[in-house]
């Protein structure tokens, strides 16, 4: 349970706004350090990670600063086996003591996707029940979430801010790596000799669920392999036109 849920409600807009302004001046590590503190002006926050191709960077930063931080992994039930192995390896290697996996509850799964074929019939709905609803549940005790989203990932994410109010989940949302470039990610990776996702070198720069992720060719967007051949670009965890950027 969070220790400071009282502060979770974004009631004190002024304090939060002042905090945001102050935070925004900080570099990534100092910014993240404030967020991971037990008491923040926002309330207690959780890191949410896909344990995908670039996740090691944020997780390493978190582990270095506060290894006990809550780190949530959403298990959709359709991940590549390599992702699950990589998750376990990273958690162990980085010493992430607060890591937790959460998945769809059994009754929702039977109700909405008993046959496990929803991803073929209606991928949006599949993401909604296996990711968005599950994240809602995971974030219930928290005032906000910390993600690894980056602006360079897609045209849609080019405007990504470091601090947002996320009205899908009614929580704060922090993207400490928003302005990191691909080169910076890569050099951080190399510098700290972080383990690679086994699929990263096999043409998967962005890794989602197995049935809906394909290889990316040269010159394509990082996320081009996600829901290939469909108009769908995002799973819905992040997609929200009403996200209000309070800082950039």
């Amino acid at each position, binding site marked *: 349970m969070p220790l400071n849920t009282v502060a979770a409600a974004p009631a004190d807009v002024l304090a939060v706004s002042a905090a945001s302004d102050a935070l925004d001046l900080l570099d990534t590590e100092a910014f993240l350090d404030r967020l991971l503190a037990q008491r923040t002006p926002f309330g207690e926050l959780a890191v949410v990670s896909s344990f995908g191709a670039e996740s090691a960077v944020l997780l390493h930063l978190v582990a270095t600063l506060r290894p006990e931080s809550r780190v949530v992994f959403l298990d959709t039930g359709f991940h590549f086996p390599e992702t699950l192995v990589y998750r376990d390896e990273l958690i162990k290697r980085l010493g992430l003591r607060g890591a937790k996996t959460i998945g769809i*509850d059994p009754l929702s799964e039977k*109700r909405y996707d008993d046959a496990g074929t929803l991803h073929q019939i209606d991928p949006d709905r599949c993401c909604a029940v296996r990711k968005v609803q599950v994240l809602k*549940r995971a974030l219930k005790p928290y005032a906000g979430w910390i993600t690894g989203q980056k602006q360079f990932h897609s045209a849609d994410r080019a405007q990504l801010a470091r601090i947002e109010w996320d009205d899908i989940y009614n929580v704060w949302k922090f993207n400490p790596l928003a302005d990191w470039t691909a080169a910076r990610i890569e050099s951080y990776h190399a510098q700290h000799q972080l383990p690679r996702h086994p699929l990263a070198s096999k043409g998967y720069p962005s890794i989602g669920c197995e049935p809906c992720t394909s290889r990316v060719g040269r010159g394509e967007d990082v996320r081009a392999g996600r829901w290939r051949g469909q108009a769908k670009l995002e799973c819905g965890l992040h997609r929200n036109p009403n996200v209000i950027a309070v800082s950039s």
Partner: protein
Amino acid sequence: MYRYSAFDEDFVRERVAQFRDQVARRLSGALTEEEFKPLRLMNGLYLQLHAYMLRVAIPYGTLSSRQMRVLADIAERWDRGYGHFTTRQNIQFNWPLLVDTPDILAALATADMHAIQTSGNTIRNVTTDHFAGAALDEVTDPRPYAEWIRQWSTDHPEFQFLPRKFKIAISAGSIDRAVIKAHDIGLRLVQSGEEIAFDIYVGGGLGRTPVVGKRLFRGVTTEALLPHLEAILSVYNLAGRRDNKYKARIKILLQAMGVEAFKAAVEEALPSATAGFTAGDLRPLHDIMDHFVVPTFPERSIEPYLEQIDTVPAFRSWVERNVNPHKQECYASVTVSLKAHGKTPGDASAEQMRCLADIAEQYGFSELRVSHEQNIVLPHIAQADLPAVYQRLCATQLATANIGLVSDLIACPGMDYCALATARSIPIAQRLSLRYRARERTLGPMKIKISGCINACGHHHIGDIGILGLDKAGVENYQLTLGGRGGLAAKLGDKMGPGFSEDDLVLALDRLLDTYLALRLSPAETFATSVERLGTEPFRIALYEVSDAA
């Protein structure tokens, strides 16, 4: 829930009084067993290996808390403290004294229950989906139609002496949970525009000549349903064989006449059957529907459920195995397993029955169901109440989380009780459920069905693994069938080779299951799917591997 009308009540009371007199005459010696037998069979009383057995009808498997408590009282007062729920949604009491049976029937009558037409060559209890009224996939609740058919068939003057017993099942879901294709008549409710219509399957049945029912009529209207049943039964009643009880079921008639000729005969009989009904005959159906009004389900938060799911692994695995979603969001249907490892499948003690009655009363609109797989269902439980229900079930040894797994097996009473049995089934069931307890989650969904004789009350023909116990020169011998299934794609299992002794049977099953684990493409591939993909041959070879070498 349907309650007896004054007419029903008088009828049942009168039957109890009649039977009391018959029992008194039997006990005084005025009636011989030969004379008494047809009379007791009219009231569900059998004479088995060691004792009388009373089979009580639970129409379409629906019970109220009040009725369940009466069953508990009977078990305690007049039996040995337990009852046995059967594959036809009935309950059997195995040890009643003859002198007590009229009192038992009188006790049943106080809660709108009876044992009429649970035996004899009549139309038996109409069975249905144990999730009826709660299932996500049903077009409508099939139970009002089942009750309508029950009223039509009870004491039907023309159909009290059919060539042989006659079983009807009715199902309304996209998945058939009532094994309708293994019944003399199987009815499937379908949506036809605005209306409900019926597909009628005829001539299914297991027993010594297993046959999958054939669809004879499609889209029969509600008005035409009873005339169709009447016509089918009248053709059978006249043309069915009465010279040989093993050739007397409707499935044999269908085979002898041919499906087309049988259908033509039914169509010929239809006009006169239809003439016997008037528009007023639909009125009882409408009255019955009023008794089946769906409870109003107040909206409840699912938070208490989610919290336990995330923190209590035992609760989570119980939900995964034993709980199904309900047509009303935030509600669920709970299947209470009567298959605790090492216990007799389908048995419940009086204490367990009362516990179930209490839980249903407190959390589940006082409703309970008996499933044809010999479990009890609490059809309407708010997800928020699942943690409390689970706690209560744990306290009464009713929380075994094994629905659909190896130990959720069906077994007939077999040689432990039944006068017809040629081998024991319950001890085999107990042994298998204990033997595979630790591996059953790895093995995944698997239906094992055991019959202790050729009459196949344990439905072995439609099990993934069917076990048939026979007597071979005074020694029990178990034969296997593989790859059977119920449902709308019902299929009879393939017979394997020579049978096994009990000890060799478990070793053969070990090899069979190891082979499945080795051959399956992934843990997601069930045993049934493996058999479908590979055929039964690789599994047959595994069964006999060692025996052949020896």
